[in-house]
């Protein structure tokens, strides 16, 4: 064999390799992992419905809480009902905690709460996209309910977090939209728009979504100090209506979200917390019942009896009782004496509650109204918004409504009336620079 022919052979080998290289792609086409779904797999009617269910499930999780990140055990205060109650006077912790203490110098206290709400918000947006595109024949209530939930999420965000909350979106075609901060007022407007959108297909219907949307409108108007419109929206909702979040310890994926036995291993319902707190436990009020479950750091731990540790649990996101309370607040704002009748009508629904009498002064009337709200709506994420409204709408100093004085370990309560959305948002979202207003 000559050098020449050897060279030709070598070139042939190289050419063969090159051709093989050109077709490498066919060798590496493999199915995608089975434990995740890509967008292609969901681009069907059933896929869109599954996303709808997922978005609702995430909304429940936003209410009931999430598991600790990084594989840690236990449950974090990552739900808005608990987090708001900890900042306010509903819950307290046996160990020092910056939300409980009302200190948030680094603006990170909402690092768990905000994302659990945001993931529900983002999934709702995704589900809306898919329902519209791939399940056009799905009941209209599906899309409406997702808007409803988005409205509630925005509303709770406006009540819990400092002004300047970003709402990000997972847009179509794999793109992402980083949210820009919305002020408290803007969030309320946004929430109202979501409730309007949810209600639009129903007109005068009295279905669940429609009633919940009207309640949402009422809550939004209440936050905007438009008591008349709030009362008007609330007036169309019967007292016995409730829009609920649910969880179950019998469904593994749901049970993991919230375990009262876990939460009340580190948190407790509070009683007269920080001077201004209400006597939820010691009052013996039949609307709120508690069970002593343990003692941690020489502090008794009380668990709301309604928060069962197993089985199915339903907690009201919003209900008709609040509708009546909103009406009462409107009447009080108008100087209408029937405001107290509204409250007393509600109290007749619970055995053992005596009728209220007019305390006689405007301030005391407001105090009474908000106390009634606190006991009726205990543990449902309303108290934080109410305290903030007392500061913003009724000009109460924050030190007169939030827990104050000596905190645990020799610390003092701070002065914050809201929490930040988490330092990571500053690090990862160029549009977000931190709270734009820490006032109530």
């Amino acid at each position, binding site marked *: 064999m000559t050098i020449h022919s050897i060279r030709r052979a070598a070139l042939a080998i190289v050419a063969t*390799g090159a051709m093989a290289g050109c077709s490498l*792609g066919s060798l590496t086409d493999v199915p995608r992992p089975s434990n995740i779904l890509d967008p292609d797999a969901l681009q069907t009617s059933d896929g869109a419905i*599954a996303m709808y269910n997922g978005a609702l499930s995430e909304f429940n999780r936003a209410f009931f809480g999430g598991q600790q990140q990084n594989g840690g055990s236990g449950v974090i205060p990552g739900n808005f009902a608990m987090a708001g109650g900890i900042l306010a006077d509903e819950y307290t912790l046996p160990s020092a905690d910056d939300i409980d203490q009302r200190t948030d110098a680094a603006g990170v206290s909402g690092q768990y709460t905000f994302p659990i709400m945001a993931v529900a918000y983002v999934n709702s947006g995704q589900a809306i996209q898919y329902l519209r595109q791939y399940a056009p024949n799905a009941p209209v209530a599906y899309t409406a309910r997702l808007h409803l939930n988005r409205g509630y999420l925005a509303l709770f965000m406006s009540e819990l977090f400092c002004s300047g909350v970003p709402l990000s979106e997972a847009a179509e075609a794999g793109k992402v939209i980083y949210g820009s901060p919305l002020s408290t007022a803007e969030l309320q407007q946004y929430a109202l728009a979501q409730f309007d959108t949810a209600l639009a297909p129903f007109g005068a219907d009295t279905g669940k979504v429609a009633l919940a949307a009207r309640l949402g409108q009422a809550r939004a108007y209440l936050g905007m100090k438009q008591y008349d419109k709030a009362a008007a929206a609330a007036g169309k909702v019967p007292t016995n209506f409730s829009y609920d979040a649910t969880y179950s310890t019998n469904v593994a994926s749901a049970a993991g979200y919230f375990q009262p036995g876990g939460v009340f291993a580190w948190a407790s319902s509070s009683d007269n917390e920080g001077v201004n707190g209400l006597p939820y436990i010691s009052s013996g009020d039949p609307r709120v019942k508690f069970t002593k479950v343990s003692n941690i750091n020489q502090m008794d731990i009380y668990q709301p009896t309604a928060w069962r540790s197993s089985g199915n649990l339903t907690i009201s996101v919003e209900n008709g009782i609040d509708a009546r309370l909103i009406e009462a607040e409107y009447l009080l704002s108008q100087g209408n004496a029937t405001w107290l009748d509204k409250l007393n009508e509600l109290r007749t629904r619970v055995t053992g509650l005596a009728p209220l009498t007019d305390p006689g002064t405007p301030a005391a009337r407001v105090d009474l109204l908000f106390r009634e709200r606190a006991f009726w709506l205990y543990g449902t994420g309303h108290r934080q918004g109410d305290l903030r409204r007392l500061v913003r709408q009724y000009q109460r100093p924050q030190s007169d409504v939030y827990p104050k004085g000596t905190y645990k370990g020799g610390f003092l309560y701070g002065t914050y009336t809201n929490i930040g959305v988490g330092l990571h948002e500053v690090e990862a979202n160029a549009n977000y620079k931190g709270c734009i207003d820490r006032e109530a």
Partner: protein
Amino acid sequence: MKIPHSPIVAALVTAAILVAPPPASAQSSPLVGAAESPVATVASPVTMTVAVNRSLPVVPRGLSAAILDRLVTLSFANVPLSEVLAEVERQARLGLSYSPNVVPLQHRVSIQSNAAPVRNVLELALQGLNVQVTMVGNDQVVITRAEAPAKAVVDTTDGVIDGVVLDKSTLTPVPAVLVRLDGTTHGMPTRADGTFRLTNVAPGTHVLRATRLGFQPEEKTVIVQANRTTNARIEISPAPLRMNDIITTSSGTQKRLELGNSIATISADSVVKNAPVRNLSDLIAARAPGVEVMTTSGTVGAGSRLRVRGLGRISGSNDPIVIIDGVRVESDFSSGLNKQFNKASGGFSTSASSRLDDIDPNSIETIDILKGPSAATLYGSDAANGVIVITTKRGKAGPARWNAFSERGIMQMKAKFTESYRGWGTSAVNGPDSPCTLLDVAAGRCTGIDSVSHFNPLNDSRTSPFGTGTTFLNGVDVSGGTDHLLYYFGGSTENSVGVLKMPDKDLEMLQVRRNGAPIPEWQRRPNQFDKQAGTARVTANFGNTGDLTFSTALTHQSQLNMADAAVIGQALQGSGSSEINDGWNDQATSTTRPADLFAPRGTSDVTRGIVSLSGNWRPFTWLTGRSTFGADYADRTDELYLRTGDDPLALLGQDGKRNRNEGNTKIYSADIGGTLTLPVTNFLTSRTTVGGQYTHSFTKDMLVQGTGLSVGATTFNSARIRSMSEAFEQIATAGWYLEETGIINERLYLTAGFRRDRGSAFGKNAPAPIYPKLSASWLLSQEPFFPRITSLSNLRLRAAYGHAGVQPTTTGAIRTYTPGTGFVDGEQVTTSILNSLGNADLKPERSTEFEGGADISFLDDRVTVEATYYRKLSKDAIAGHSPPNSFGYPYLTSRQENVGEVLNTGTEFQITAQPVASHLVSWDFTLNLSKNRNELKSLAPGMGLLRNGQEQYEVGYPLSGRWERPILGYNDANKDGIIAPEEVTVGDSMVFVGQPVPKRQASWTNSLGFLGNRFRVTAMLDYQGGLGQVDMATVQRCYGGHCQATVDPSTPLDQQAAIAALSKPYPYNTPYYFNQTVSWTRLRNVTLSYELPLSLVSRVNVSSARISLMGQNLWLWSQYSGADPEVNTNPYRNYIIDQGGLPMTRNYSVRLNLGF
């Protein structure tokens, strides 16, 4: 006679030989000439020496030839030649010099002579022996191997030396040997046929020095005459030199000296015989500079973390890939579906086994570690973290050779654990004699600390959960074969029981609790490990044209391990008194002690099979082909079972639990290539290699969990809550490569090549990456111009540059959703929720590395130094970047993004030396030194900090560094002598406190041999420095109020401040003080071995027997505050943490190696 090796005589002999003038018809090669020419009696009157052919020695005439004319009378019949020569010597009164290697003294001859000249007698006696007789002086005659006829004299006043260099062992020509006149630069390398010619050599006596890397230097004295050609024949012997090692790379096998990279090679067989090695991690640890093996725990069966040249990746695995006999195998310890034992244990166990350690170390011949992209370019994607190439043992032609070993050992826990403290005082709530801390006093919850008690159940024999562990290792192998069929079969077993043991007190407690029912052995000794391994390798040789090898390795191992970290944690937070719960934690929700902690049964079973079929085809001398097809199958089943009623503590959340995690990985791989070697010119040889590789892995994983089991039930059917998750993924990579090496004068190797790859994880529209490489290896000391330096044996310079890639995760580029179930409106529903945002713009990660260095050997290669500098830059580094919280992070998977550049620079040295080498005593050592600097070089704008708690990524700092808020100061404002949390000032910004890989590593292995190495002492010191470790076990202990500093009023304020800072409100609660940059030195092992005398062992038909006493982890020097700086309870991630994992045990064993 006969001092053939005397230098004087040798010089004289050589000189005499080399003064011979050439015959008129001389050929270019004296060897060929000697072999093929007919009887060459030269009649020149000036000739002193003649060349002879094989059949008839010719002796000289002329000056001084009268000696050969002396007359001798002989009468011998069939006697040894030695007798004839002796008689000639005696009668002729001359000195005959010869080497018994040249002259077959036992050759039998018959000779009858009556007063015949010596010349004729010798002609007759030496006939047919291919020797020649030379006169040296008046009375001296030497007999040497026949030389070729001398060549024509060059017409010059100077002389010429024509010669050939042969391999002494094979007598084949050796090219590229630098032959020169000693002390000058006058010389040349030998040609392809081993010949050389030196012209213009001044008349006189010269010493020729022949050197070539891989051979021992040889000198030869020649006498050059004016206008004459002197013949020289030099035989050189191969040297046992590292540069001669055969290294297996993707493009086939090559000699180390041909590669431009530093390749670490571990001769496994010799290590295993002389050191305590239970698994592959033991084999690699501290034996290669730049390779870090971090043992994660002292539990038996625990895996180790392996890092080569630091951390290169921000997220994803930093583990190197592993190739066994050409087959890609599963080895990843850090990430992926099928890796984590603690998935089934729910995080309760932290000491998983490693797939790397499935491989039986007894079956390995060599391990080559290709450390970075410049060496691993042709392995393409996934090779950026390095490649470990394992070659298993193979048979050698000959009768069956059996080897067997048996090892028996014990393990002991020698670490001392810090005492757990408790302060006693009067509590405002619970009254006197209550537990109180200084912070309780400061806060008014207690009136003061009246007394302090301390105890740690780990340190007390009555309560200690540690016993003596045992290990039994046995193995046997046989190898042998013929030239046509070679075989190797081997097998080994291991049975180890770890040191964890249920204390007697807990046993009694448990028996009472269980109404006397027997406590099972797995609960008494909750850490055990069993392994069985078998290896077979059969090679069929088809003459010189090819061979076919089939090999297979089968392994099965079972690990029982639970609660190693938990048991230490519960002791460190103990009651502080042996009287209270035997010193165990009594302040948790329930008591936690071994009786409870050992209740869950955690097991991991792995069955592993690796098969390969490889062939080599050599149709021509210039063309070779090779192919390997193989498969690796790893099947793993992890189980956790907790019987209902056995967990009064609800440690695992719910009573009665069973988790089962089944996973398996199949990897199919093919590797085909060919090499074309062609001489281009007299000095240049071209070697072209083309090849392709294909790897396809399938991974399945299924996790089934049942919680709330019925009493006595073991099946999932009986669980109140059942859940299941399943995952399956495939990854395929295909690539082909071309490599061209130019070999210039056998001393300069220039290589260029590239690989083109395609991976299933690449985006569909992404172009197939091309990874280029360049390398050079230059045997500088072989160059003619290189000056002769006393003591310097060889000098090689090398440099390499190359790229390699890293695949993104399989779904990094696409938006994904997670299917599942949810509970909505009172009903269970199927759901899909967003899992990952995806990144349509994701590019593959690419690492570029340059390395350069030198290999220098001194004193005839008794001292060798390898020095290497490397610089590895990973561009478009992929990071699982946490999206903003407003997308729902951390409830979404991180989004993979190309975030920046990571730089690793470092130096590596390996020094091997044999300072003493006598039969009586020998001493050799290997010193490995390495230094690595790891740095996040840049971060894409807008990425912000990449954070995961205290693990952060900051430009200018190491990857996965640990960051904490610093303690800026403290002030006992109320002068109560107690530092409360509010009296500690903590910084608003985090500061860097430690890196997760050591900055410096060193190991020093010394071996002393006595009496011809019959008795041998080997010891290894292992050092790591600059490692950031966090003593989280102490943090938890102090946070819980169990430190001396938390209860003792006399504790200095700075120590109080360090602990008070733990209790500050989030995010200012900082364990800053407990982050330590640790350095440690461990006496890793010591082995005393003795080779039993053959006279003794041969009586029982044993050909060799060596008995060894071995100790492992014998001593630790460290300032680390925890029990063991090497513990890592976070083995799956980059950053390390010590949360109370089991420290390394001290092991002793005795091993017997037998050969048959």
